[in-house]
């Protein structure tokens, strides 16, 4: 029994070390995804924490089933499911506008900075108006830099369907932004 428990402890230690690596590598991804889903830092922290706790519980099985493939889509899928519960339980939608998400690219004049910030805020507002699946696909692609295959795994779709989804999402977003910009101009 002692030998068996020593072996179980070694397996557990190995698993915990692997999970720590996963967590350190993808904390920012999960946080970014959560943030763009819920629209504020406070709930994004909660969602990130819940995602990693859930992931920890099922890590061993996920590792076996992934057969060496990256686990980021699996993590994002957990965050996706938790975010869906978050809206369902509290009957909430993402808050708009999103808090100031991060540093803006370098610009030269104050006027340009303001104009640029307005543009980006408009895009973010329009992202929040997209249907859930399209919004999520764009967050995964542009905020997390995931490729089509990873997004497909996270959303449980085929690669082809994901490609179409992203294409349509960008198109719809572009139209929304143009419409909003036209409204603001008049």
């Amino acid at each position, binding site marked *: 029994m002692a030998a068996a428990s020593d072996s179980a*402890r070694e397996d557990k230690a190995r698993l915990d070390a692997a999970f720590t690596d996963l967590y350190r590598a993808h904390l920012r*991804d999960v946080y*970014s995804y959560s943030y763009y889903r819920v629209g504020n830092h406070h709930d994004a922290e909660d969602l990130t924490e819940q995602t990693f706790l859930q992931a920890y519980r099922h890590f061993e099985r996920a590792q076996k089933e992934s057969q060496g493939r990256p686990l980021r889509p699996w993590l994002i899928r957990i965050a996706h499911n938790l975010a869906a519960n978050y809206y369902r339980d509290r009957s909430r939608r993402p808050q708009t506008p999103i808090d100031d*998400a991060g540093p803006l690219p370098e610009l030269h004049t104050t006027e340009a900075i303001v104009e640029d910030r307005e543009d980006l805020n408009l895009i973010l507002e329009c992202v929040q108006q997209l249907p859930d699946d399209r919004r999520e696909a764009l967050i995964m692609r542009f905020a997390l830099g995931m490729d089509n295959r990873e997004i497909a795994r996270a959303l449980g779709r085929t690669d082809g369907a994901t490609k179409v989804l992203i294409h349509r999402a960008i198109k719809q977003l572009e139209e929304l932004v143009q419409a909003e910009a036209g409204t603001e101009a008049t």
Partner: protein
Amino acid sequence: MSTWDFETRLREALQPVDPPADLEPRLEMTLGSLVEMAADELDAWELRAMKDPRNWPRTVLGPAAAVVIGSGAAAGLVILRTRGRRHKRRAQARNAWDLAERTFRDAAREAMRVFDDIGR
């Protein structure tokens, strides 16, 4: 704005967001306590398992039972194979003493074969 420009703007709008500095240590602490709780749970489970008499047969008597059952099966096999040749032995035996000797030799030979089979 071209689609390519639009995608560039979209990438700028959806920049990755850094988590607050205190999130990482806080989460590590939570996960650390989970790991400790799991280890404590394992220790407690082992102690409980050792104290529970229902587990004694499995841990202590299990190997002994396996040896007894295995030996019984091997002996049974030797007897069966030896009995299979009894008519031939009777036909060849000159008297009762010779029959006993032949039976003993057959049994020894079958036992060696069974041990060879087990060892393979």
